């Protein structure tokens, strides 16, 4: 009989630990380390890049259940290419028409894991008023305890390629500007 409480305590402890681990954790995107960069080929010569500077969102991850949910909103007017004329043209109604479509959204609800690490997030991207399925593939994924924030931070690098024509963004397609746009996503999110 003496052993029972100890065993119960052990089971309870395991149970508690398990419960703590299984509990879904919510993370808020850390805007200083979350950026979406696009890459598009320029006349088969070099690659043009641009970055969206304003964004917000949350991620929920349940590592035990291997599920998650990601909701991100990008301010499309915060596009920054380093070339004022190019940025202006991208904002115009010929391309992203950011006056009419000031945000882009990604909602991911199918998370794939390898062990504790997220390897893929599948969901829907809404851009230029059109929605298509997109899968973000992790190049890096890691969690760490931030010495500054004193909180857990998870994040990594994700990539995907979209076809801009599927979003009704066809400018220059007839003079050879590529349909494929490569997206490179840096993301870090702070545990709440």
């Amino acid at each position, binding site marked *: 009989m003496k052993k029972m409480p100890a065993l119960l305590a052990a089971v309870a402890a395991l149970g508690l630990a398990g419960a703590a681990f299984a509990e879904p954790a919510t993370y808020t995107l850390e805007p200083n380390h979350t950026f979406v960069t696009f890459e598009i080929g320029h006349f088969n010569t070099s690659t043009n890049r641009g970055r969206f*500077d304003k964004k917000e969102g949350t991620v929920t991850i349940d590592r035990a259940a291997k599920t998650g949910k990601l909701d991100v909103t990008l301010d499309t007017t915060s596009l920054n290419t380093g070339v004022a004329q190019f940025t202006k043209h991208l904002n115009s109604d010929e391309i992203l028409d950011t006056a009419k479509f000031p945000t882009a959204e990604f909602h991911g609800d199918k998370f794939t894991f390898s062990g504790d690490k997220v390897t893929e997030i599948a969901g829907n991207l809404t851009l230029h008023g059109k929605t298509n399925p997109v899968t973000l593939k992790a190049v890096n994924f890691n969690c760490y305890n931030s*010495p500054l924030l004193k909180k857990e931070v998870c994040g990594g690098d994700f990539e995907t390629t979209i076809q801009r024509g599927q979003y009704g963004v066809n400018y220059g397609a007839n003079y050879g500007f590529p349909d494929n746009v490569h997206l490179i996503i840096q993301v870090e999110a702070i545990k709440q």
Partner: protein
Amino acid sequence: MKRSSSKTGSVAHALACATLSTSAGLAGAQPQAAASSASAAAGGPVVYRLDPDHTFVTFEVRHFGTSTLRGRIGPVPGEVQIDRVARSGDLRLRIPVGTVDTGMRVLDARLKEPDLLSVAANPEAYFIATNFRFDAQGNVQEARGEFILRGVSEPLSLIARRFGCRIDERLRREVCGGDFEGDLKRGRFGASYGEPFVSDDVHLVVQVEGIAR
């Protein structure tokens, strides 16, 4: 050239390094120059002015072993001389490091401080390369030279991931360019603030296009 990590942090030192490297590079390039004049009828050296709309350096560092932090520097002005027949090249770039743009103003300001890019003392970095490698079609595959940051010089190789030339219909001139990548260790230039939380390894991704003069 002194490749020490001694920080003089002066523009004079950087320029002295640049001059030394250039003269050494020119001496090494003499046989190629002779070959280029022999084949001048077929090709000959062409000077390309870098296109400010399509010439940027992006650096990448790893943040807490987790995500990749990027910053953009540029546009990079200057000229590149290439002889695609003689397979030689010459570039001397002045890189305006104060243009650094990460999308975070606080980080941009921090990067300009004396222990990182040291912009006040060293407003420009330099890349001087006279050692070019070409493929069979005369496309640049690699440019090897010296990178001078914060007045400290270290060898740097930029490898072409993509290179091509075209006749630009609007400009009615030949445009050559591509995407190049290189790697350096920032600590060797004395810019090790934030290590190891932010990596010593810096990956460079360079977009470049040049318009034939």
